[in-house]
């Protein structure tokens, strides 16, 4: 156990260092994020202007929505179109079996590797983009959190979001080790959190009758819950609920992922040689 933790931390440190080398790609990523999110914020500005005139009163104000968008942009690294590239290559060329020649817990090892990639992206791309966004004028830029206590609950919630996002990606990875299925199921499974996490549209802007389900489903925890805490549409006093949801779903995905993986590893065949 202690050995596993130490090995995973060491792996995390090394991959983080490795990921930090990709500065150019992070920089272009920051620019892309800034441009897209600004356009979106402007579009919401127009939408709110006409919608409010027409008597619309959604769950969020324009200011909250724009603030939400920037928080989302910061956390966007948690969602990707596919699983970790390196792991995918290992799975498709059969080198997964070779990892089994080492005395390690493959699940937590891969988990650390995925986490390192995301943390690096989050720090170099997400956070930097967020900070620059404070400079955008005209009410379209990032804003301070609703209150200091909102900020205090936002931080652990981001941590939980990482746990949840990675636990889900590990589940998808474990399923992807079934090479005969190809990429299809993986892409479908990765699309789900894109829609349901609030990355396309803040969940609170969706119809009222869906709200309860949207809050309870697993993927709200990846972006929506931390963002709600930041903009104050979920009060700090309710943070325990949001984070319990995040932790509950993380645990569920971890258990499922470990189970699928241990079953799959038994039937993996080392190709070639």
């Amino acid at each position, binding site marked *: 156990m202690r*050995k596993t933790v130490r090995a995973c931390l060491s*792996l995390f440190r090394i991959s983080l260092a490795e990921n930090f080398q990709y500065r150019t790609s992070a920089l272009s990523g920051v620019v892309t994020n800034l441009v897209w999110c600004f356009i979106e914020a402007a579009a919401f500005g127009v939408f709110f202007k006409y919608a409010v005139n027409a008597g619309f009163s959604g769950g969020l104000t324009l200011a909250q929505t724009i603030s939400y968008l920037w928080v989302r942009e910061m956390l966007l690294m948690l969602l990707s179109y596919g699983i970790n590239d390196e792991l995918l290559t290992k799975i498709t060329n059969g080198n997964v079996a*070779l990892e089994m020649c080492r005395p390690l817990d493959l699940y937590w090892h891969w988990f650390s590797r995925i986490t390192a990639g995301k943390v690096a992206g989050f720090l170099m791309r997400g956070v930097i983009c967020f900070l620059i966004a404070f400079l955008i004028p005209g009410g379209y830029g990032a804003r301070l959190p609703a209150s200091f206590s909102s900020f205090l609950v936002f931080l652990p919630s981001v941590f939980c979001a990482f746990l949840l996002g990675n636990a889900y990606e590990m589940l998808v990875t474990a399923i992807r080790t079934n090479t005969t299925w190809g990429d299809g199921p993986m892409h479908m499974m990765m699309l789900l959190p894109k829609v349901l996490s609030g990355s396309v549209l803040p969940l609170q802007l969706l119809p009222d009758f869906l709200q309860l389900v949207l809050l309870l489903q697993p993927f709200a925890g990846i972006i929506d819950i931390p963002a709600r805490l930041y903009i104050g549409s979920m009060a700090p006093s309710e943070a325990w609920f949001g984070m319990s949801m995040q932790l509950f779903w993380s645990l569920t995905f971890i258990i499922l992922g470990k189970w699928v993986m241990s079953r799959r590893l038994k039937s993996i*065949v080392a190709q070639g040689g």
Partner: protein
Amino acid sequence: MAQILLDSIDKRFKVYERPDGKWGLIKGAFMRKVRSVQALDGIGFQIGEGELVGYIGPNGAGKSTTVKIMSGILTPDCGICEIGGRVPWKDRVKHVSEIGVVFGQRSQLWWDVPVSDSFSLLKDIYDIPETQYQERLRELTNALNIAEFLKIPARQLSLGQRMRCEIIAALLHRPKILFLDEPTIGLDAVSKLALRAFLKEENKRSGVTVLLTTHDMDDIEALCSRVMVIGRGRLLYDGALCGLKERYAAKDRQNIDEIIAAMYEDMAL
């Protein structure tokens, strides 16, 4: 008792084939012909502690398959395999912490980071104390002469440079048993000699058991007092190399490769 014991191990693989003929491409989309290949057909042998054994046979004989089974990453269909008293695939983590494996055609190093990072990660994985690790690393880097590429990522190394690093990665934790599947692939003459000398020395000093598959008969000649020949998944010969030579050498056949070729032919492989 023997340290490595295999008895009547069978392994079949399923292979999918596309039907032949003009419409094969389209037919193949709907129905695949499944054929089963018998990779191992009742393999059995015993190896004692500290032995240096060469495992040879023509392409596709089942050498790598045997090594994979012994390393715990492949489960045979039936048969007994016990290594150090453990069944590899049942007690995988314990088992692999006591063995070292090199697959010459594949990389176990971590592709994108400097080789030294891969090594220090292995230190944590195998829980090697820092002083022992430093000492061992120095010993190995000197023996295989890789000090100059420690800071280079594995993907930027040449084949032979990488192979030398792979071998070190398999030896850092001082395994009791070493499985080497074509470890001399891509090595230049100097490195080959260095590796052979090192293996011999390591075997003498720490009593490590080595099973080596290779197509380079000089490796076998230099290292192994015992050879096992496998063909079509069966064990065909088990004994001293000179025994083989006596049987298959002739006036016009003095070269070891020619002798082995004659043997494969004789055994109808």
